[in-house]
């Protein structure tokens, strides 16, 4: 039979370290030099494994009676024989092998990103973002206009974005071999543009609908966006250990958001709050119909109910005075 099989020996990081073409019905794997595939692993027997075709043509691995045995790549249970049609991975000693038939289907050709395409995108996005931030700075500038006042925050912002992207690029270089800074920068800039747009939209809606609660959703949205950004950065690095990384990121973000909320409510409890009109926009941003005085004052009854309830929830402590201040 002229069937061909390929045996890949993987490195500790999961990349293919060696690939052997085997012609013939059977291949032998072990530490000894009379094998078809020689594996330098002290935990592998001199003659560890034989890979052959079963009667139906399927490839099967078989333990040749070794100390450390044969395992599926992701399995914990030792097996004597391992069919390889579905899961081509084998673990012997500390080495992982993959066995493929010549007919093994490979992924379709991926479109090559033209060189510098990410860089061009990053430049365009960066330019747009800086222009938007400059415009916003200008629209919120109520002090005497000065270049410092406008440019310094932008400089700080730029530094943070570059450092952030650089950090991801460094991670990518360490674990994947390629830095891909432009791609990471592009992701970070996209996230910033979405964040700015979200903040502006939430601010305008919060004013236009006279709905102050939106502020709280605004912060939640920002945390969600941070999560999505980290996901995109990770995806760009490579999909290995994605679940663990995603779990860590999700946990960090949930912890961050919770602490922010807890801190905010502590602060308002202990430092007091001022009554404000909230973040204002020009009158043209109003989206809501005008109410009458009566409607407005009627709605204050719900405010009264809320503070009455919070009064009952937290009754005064026995001691009215916390200090021993003598006058």
């Amino acid at each position, binding site marked *: 039979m002229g069937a061909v099989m390929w045996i890949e020996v993987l490195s500790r990081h999961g990349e293919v370290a060696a690939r052997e073409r085997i012609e013939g019905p059977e291949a032998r794997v072990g530490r000894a030099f009379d094998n078809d595939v020689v594996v330098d692993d002290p935990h592998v027997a001199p003659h560890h494994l034989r890979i052959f075709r079963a009667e139906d043509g399927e490839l099967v691995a078989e333990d040749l009676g070794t100390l450390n045995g044969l395992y599926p790549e992701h399995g914990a249970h030792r097996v004597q024989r391992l069919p390889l049609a579905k899961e081509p991975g084998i673990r012997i000693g500390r080495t992982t092998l993959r066995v493929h038939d010549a007919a093994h289907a490979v992924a379709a050709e991926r479109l090559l990103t033209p060189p510098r395409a990410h860089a061009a995108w990053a430049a365009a996005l960066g330019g747009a973002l800086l222009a938007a931030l400059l415009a916003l700075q200008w*629209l*919120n*500038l*109520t*002090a*005497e206009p000065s270049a410092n006042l406008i440019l310094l925050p932008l400089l700080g912002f730029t530094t943070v974005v570059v450092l952030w992207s650089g950090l991801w690029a460094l991670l990518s270089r360490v674990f994947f071999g390629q830095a891909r800074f432009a791609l990471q920068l592009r992701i970070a800039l996209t996230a910033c543009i979405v964040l700015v747009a979200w903040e502006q939209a939430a601010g305008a809606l919060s004013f236009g609908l*006279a*709905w*102050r609660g939106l502020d709280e959703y605004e912060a939640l949205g920002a945390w969600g966006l941070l999560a999505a950004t980290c996901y995109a950065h990770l995806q760009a690095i490579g999909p290995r250990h994605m679940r663990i990384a995603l779990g860590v990121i999700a946990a960090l973000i949930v912890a961050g958001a919770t602490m922010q909320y807890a801190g905010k*409510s502590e602060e*308002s*409890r*202990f*430092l*007091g*709050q*001022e*009554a*404000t*009109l*909230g*973040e*204002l*926009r*020009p*009158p*043209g941003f*109003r989206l*809501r*119909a*005008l*109410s*009458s*005085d009566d*409607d*407005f*004052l009627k*709605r*204050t009854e*719900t*405010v*009264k109910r*809320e*503070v*009455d309830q*919070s*009064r009952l929830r*937290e*009754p*005064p402590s*026995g*001691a*009215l*005075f*916390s200090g*021993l*201040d*003598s*006058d």
Partner: protein
Amino acid sequence: MRRLLVLVAGSLAAGMSLSLAAASAPAPGTSPATAGARPGVPLSSTAERVFEMAKPRILQIRTLLQAAGRQTTLGSGFVVSSDGYALTNYHVVSRFALDPKTYRLEYLAPDGAKGPLSLLAIDVAHDLAVVKVDHASLPYFEIDPRALAGYLPKGERMYAMGNPLDLGFTIVEGTNNGLVDKSYDERIHFSGAINPGMSGGPVTGADGRIVGINVAKRVDGEQVGFLVPAKFAAELLARARKGPPLAVDKAREEVGRQLDAWQASFYDALRREGFREASFGPYRGLESAAPWMTCWAATNADQVPRPRAAINSTSCSSATSLFVSDRILTGRVDLSYSYYKSIDLNAFQFAHELSRRSTAGFGNQARRLTEQECRDDFVAMPGSHRPPLRATWCMRAYREFEGLYNVTVLALTQDRDREALLARLTMLGVSYANAVDTGRRFLEAIRWAR
């Protein structure tokens, strides 16, 4: 406005102290008669006689921490009946009144005698309290009938006594300057040095009879002291004699009742005095006609660097202040209007400037109040001569006192994008009904000037 706040802080926040209890003394009525100033006799000799007479009748009132047995605040007081009734300020005994498990009261007389005091009655509105010394047949002060009738000539010499800063019993000679103008509360303006520790101490005329009780001073002036007129003390004393004594554990409820009654009569008076229109640029707002609402104006026209929006504001305040505890000052109404006109700000910058300035604080009493809740809306009356408003209603409840709130109403005109009137109404210690009523007048009054 700022000056009035200082008055509040300086006068009431400073815990005051002391007076003396008498153990033995001349019979009342006899020595006062001989104590009048005579021509040719130096004034100091009158003070000497008044103090000699007063000495067995004044007390230092100490609030002790139950557990440690040591003083936490000091004030003064004085005996007004032979069976041991004594008067002082409410703020001298407020810790004990609100938290009798943690604190107890004790008096110290000039002769060194000490003993427990019981609290019989309080009057939060006038800052008075009646306490009782456990003693029979004590010498005591009489209340000047002229003070009860309200006739005390300006310029009359008065003698304030107490134990300032725990330095020892002291007599201070000063001048009566009559009732304070433009004040909702009746207060005698006493030109003399009143210091912390003298709160609750007696103030007498040259004949040694009570005309007032030390209560407060202004810290932004010199020798500007305030006395509670003796007539309120007489009223409270009569009430204490008639009614059952204050139940120690019910004092908090009593304070709540008195605060509620105070705000009810205050807002009645505000309505009775009426309101008038006041113009601010092209807008109109509300101004109280009450003589005790004092108003101050401010502008940023002379600001350097040149302002980018012109601001002209008027703030009116009732300048009232009720001391409830070290952490609670309440019972005040503030009404302010700021007219903003952009000089070179565009519509967005102008809106941003307004958001930065649209705050109205309640002061830092966070723990005594619930968290703030606010409601925003756009308000207008269809077909009226009123500009549309962006309005906010913010509210906090007093944890200790049911039915009392701090309410702020903010309104910003929305008819132009580079010009606006920002109006603020702050009510401290108000019932919901009075807040809504006052808030409605406030909103309705914001109109276009014709």
